[in-house]
């Protein structure tokens, strides 16, 4: 783990993007949207375990109770709900254009999905399989995170994220972080929020207080930062989409080094995350 070198490369079809863990934590699903497939890996060793044909998986996640697997099919404008155990399609929503990111309420009743090209955040009731509300949040919404009873949604065509009340769908706060705010993460250990800002202009990470949303620090990192992971030493691993590399940032000193990895690194999973108790998602790290 300490060599910080690429130790293996596995082929995919088109462009792998986001990931999720299966409820038993034995399989890591990685989306390959235009290849219409999910690639399955051993989350500890990284060994390939197979692949599954599924329509246009861009971003996906199990509900906290593991009953359903929800898949955002970005190109095809579908939000698909699969049975968590059998992976059979249960329900297909067509709530808007380019479903992008998603998260759930902790009781698994509601989902929140950003519609990248409809400028809305949409909520579904998974008990009745109906749409609850849709709220216009700003241009090109992306990353979604359930956080302290509210839903946070990044606005890529804007300069930050919005806080939405999950019951009413009303916007309760708007927070400025930087141009092209793309995704939002919670460092579960240190309780710090991070937002990746894609640009234009200054790109990088914004660290925020989880309650007041006050900016603690801005890290300037060029190269199109996307998803991030945090290792046990507290370093932040950042996918740099346009720099073909993963940056490793020491959040204390603000210095970073980078590892070349190949074109368009999108999502990142660190197997040390498996030590974490409770629910593991790409945004809760």
């Amino acid at each position, binding site marked *: 783990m300490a060599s910080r070198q690429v130790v293996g490369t596995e*082929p995919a*079809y*088109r462009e792998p993007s986001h990931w999720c863990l299966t409820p038993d934590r034995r399989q890591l699903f990685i989306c390959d949207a*235009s*290849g*219409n*497939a999910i690639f399955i890996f051993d989350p500890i060793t990284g060994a390939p375990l197979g*692949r599954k*044909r*599924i*329509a*246009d998986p861009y971003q996906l996640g199990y509900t906290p109770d593991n009953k359903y697997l929800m898949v955002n*099919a970005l*190109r*095809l*404008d*579908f939000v698909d709900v699969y049975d968590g155990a059998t992976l059979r399609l249960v329900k297909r929503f067509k709530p808007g254009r*380019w479903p992008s990111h998603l998260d759930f309420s902790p009781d698994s009743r509601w989902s929140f999905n950003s519609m*990248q*090209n409809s400028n809305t955040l949409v909520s579904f009731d998974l008990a009745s399989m109906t749409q609850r509300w849709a709220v216009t949040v700003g*241009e*090109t919404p992306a990353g979604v995170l359930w956080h302290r009873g509210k839903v946070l949604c990044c606005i*890529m*065509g804007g300069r930050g994220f919005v806080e939405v009340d999950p019951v009413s769908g009303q916007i309760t706060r708007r927070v400025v972080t930087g*141009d*092209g705010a793309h995704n939002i993460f919670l460092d579960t250990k240190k309780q710090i929020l991070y937002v990746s800002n*894609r*640009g*234009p*202009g200054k*790109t990088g990470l914004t660290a925020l207080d989880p309650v007041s949303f006050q900016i603690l620090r801005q890290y300037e990192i*060029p*190269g*199109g930062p996307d998803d991030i992971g945090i290792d046990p030493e507290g370093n932040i691993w950042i996918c740099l*989409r*346009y*720099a*073909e590399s993963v940056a490793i940032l020491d959040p204390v000193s603000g210095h970073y080094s980078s590892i*070349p990895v190949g*074109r*368009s690194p999108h999502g990142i999973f660190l197997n040390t995350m498996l030590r974490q108790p409770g629910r593991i998602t790409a945004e809760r790290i």
Partner: protein
Amino acid sequence: MGLDRLFSNIAGYMDQYLVLPVLFRLHWMAWDDLAFDWCLICVYGIFAVLVTYAVCLPLEAWRPVERWPDNKAVLVDVFYTFLNRVGVTPIVTFVLFYQVQTWSTGLLVEHGFIPPTLDSLVPGLFGHPLVTFLVYALILDCADYWRHRLSHSFRWWYALHALHHAQTQMSFWSDDRNHLLDDVISFFWFFTIGLLIGIPPLQFPLLLMAMKFIESLSHANIRASFGPLEWLFVSPRFHRFHHGLRAAGRHSCNYASVFPVWDIIFRTADFRDEYLPTGDARAPAALVSGSYLAQQATGLKLFWQALGKSWASLGIGRAAS
């Protein structure tokens, strides 16, 4: 691959500092993911033109088939090249293909069918990108052979293709010299095949570039063949024979653009070691040495006339030949 990395990095800079600010300002950030692909297409396009230029120019100076008093007739081909390789055409093609592919996949998925990719269907392809590319390249090249051969067989289609053949000062710039309508037809031709086999848009940019390079080189004004490998790749000699005055029109030979194997299989190959003057004796002057617009207009006029003739011959009960 080092070169691949360099290009992606250049495209990354281009995206971040040129394209993203524009998308942001125009409220088009939803296209951010695809913008990087557009930049890659441009970078590869520019590099392809540069490499072709760097290789072909000295070769054309060293062993030219023909020497011309001036290069005026070549200039318009340079314009065609930039338009097709770096400019608008590849981006428009990319966006259109993306849209239609998305739309057709959505339709299939709604009817319960998830289209597979070629590398998931054919055993042994997955995980072998070079073999996969070769299969894609052969399928596309075979399709191109038939497109080209058919464009010589129909009167109306050759009326358009004549623009490509009209050039009497054929050089490595001539590859993209085509009528816009002919380009549109090719586009739909490949579109259909691309949808059937599921082309990965940007999986093999370097290899695609290599294929395009062979096509440009095959038009170069160079007295050269590939010797013992002449049957493997289309050489300047092989394609020049297709551009020979004798081969213009409806009975031609050497239609392949990258792999001569199609001409060998379908019995249209001619490996004679001759370097003939190029052109189409029946092509009007505007098509030979006119400006870009004059060439396009004349092509359209000829197409219209040919279409009329084809209709007329159908009308009196004779099969159009």
